[in-house]
């Protein structure tokens, strides 16, 4: 069973604001997910390599050839705020 401290820790890592009243339901739901995974973990899969991808393809590589970049106006048009040709963001050091 996941405790409220773990919920708060995961919420911090995901930068999610979780209200006090949400802590208990979320702990319950996350625990149910983990229980389900634990159930699958009971299967003996010692001879089965982990599946990192669901398609069996490999080797899709790109030749090292330049393609045009986007115009800066287009790029910066998506920014909530712009300064000196860059995306203006709250300082992570603040």
């Amino acid at each position: 069973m996941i405790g409220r401290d773990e919920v708060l820790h995961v919420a911090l890592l995901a930068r999610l604001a979780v209200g006090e009243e949400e802590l208990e339901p979320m702990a319950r739901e996350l625990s149910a997910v983990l229980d389900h995974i634990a159930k699958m973990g009971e299967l003996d899969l010692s001879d089965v390599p982990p599946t990192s991808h669901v398609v069996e393809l490999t080797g899709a590589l790109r030749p090292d050839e330049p393609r045009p970049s986007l115009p800066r106006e287009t790029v910066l048009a998506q920014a909530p705020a712009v300064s000196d040709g860059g995306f203006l963001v709250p300082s992570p050091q603040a």
Partner: protein
Amino acid sequence: MRDGEPQDLDAGAAADGRAEAFEAVIGLEIHVQLATATKMFCGCELSFGEPPNTRTCAVCLGLPGSLPVANARAIHFGLMIGLALGSELAPRSIFHRKNYFYPDQAKNYQISQYDEPLCRGGSLEEIRIHRVHLEEDAAKLIHVGSSGRIHGSDASIVDFNRGGTPLAEIVTEPDIRTPEQAGEWLKLLRSTLRRLGVSDVNMEEGSLRCDANISLRRAGTEELGVKTELKNMNSFRFIERGIRAEVERQRKILSEGGEVTQETLHFDPASGALTSLRSKEEAHDYRYFPDPDLLPVAIDREMIDLAREAMPELPAERAARLQRELELSPESAQRLAFASELGDYFEAALDAAVDPPPPAQMLANWLTGDLVARLGDGEDPQASRVRPAALAELVGLVAARRVSVGAGRQVLDSLVAEGGEPQAIVDAEGLAAMDGAEELAVIVADAVRANADAAERVREGNSKAIGPIVGHVMRETKGRADGTEVSRLIHEQLGV
């Protein structure tokens, strides 16, 4: 802790009267920007000082629906690095998402590798390699304080030009014991990467960056202590100083019975201060998982053959060749081969057809001794005013005794300051060796007369007393006289 003898850690502790000696255990993580034309997962060209956000696209901006595809040349360069380090090349390699929130990543994850890296194991000289993996670089943040142009708030400006640049991360085993060893080994790694041609390896411009993991243990024990991570040092000098400062900090804590806290530190070379960057426990919870957007990379025979064919001569092989073919001393051969800028200069000088030709060992001595001393350690002689052919010509003249060693050094001073041709400088300054033995004999006789006391002591068997007499001759001849010949003449005239 005393200053001045930081490399002799045990002696330092003993001198302070402490019973316990500590040994430093150091591992390095080196990030190398690969010299591809385009980014790791998209076709944007790499940036070299272009205006901010002019080398970006949907992929490297992390826009929804975009699909990254790995750069074949970056994989090729990664395989070359693995071959150079004697690593095991993974037949199958996958990319992971490393999740963290910081404005230098628009996707909120960095594409990196986790438990299936491109290369595992290997070594470079005495230091074992843990792994080599590929990843993408982060964007550049320019921090603007409240005192800066943006008033009233602390803000940052994000430039995504660098975001997505291919990086190889090389991780060593904790086999390094001193700050000096770390610096020397890193120089060898840089030479190796430069020879491979996979990176510009310029620390000041950030194409080679180094983190160090540092812990201390009691001498003679095997158990590792709590380690700290020293981040992003951007010059060889700072790396050595930063590691030294951290080793001393930990030694002080442990000597006083305290405990080292696991944390990430930043070394400020200006103040010498170490500051904690962030809580490691939180920051390292990266929740890696395989990136579903990127297919596994299968390394086949053909890719490995291509990498093998592209391999140049590496520093250890070069040292062996210089020793074998030119009969250089092992020390000279290693010095030239392990600092590839010196080796390249040396071979260019040897290849310059000058008459008389310089003997190889003598050329090596002049380059690694006289010229390096004048330029400063770590400076690339290729960037100096002294052309390789000019050094070759000068050493040839000295070897043929047309210029004395002392006069040759004056010519080198002039070459370093202003460039030019050695023979022309010799002619203009009147620095040619004296070929009239009689003329020199007269000057020696004058010098013996003028230094009667010294002459008497030499006669009595005090060979060191010859100094003032030689000095007199050299002043009179402006250093053009051959030192050995002067010494012979003095002894002859004094009958000893």
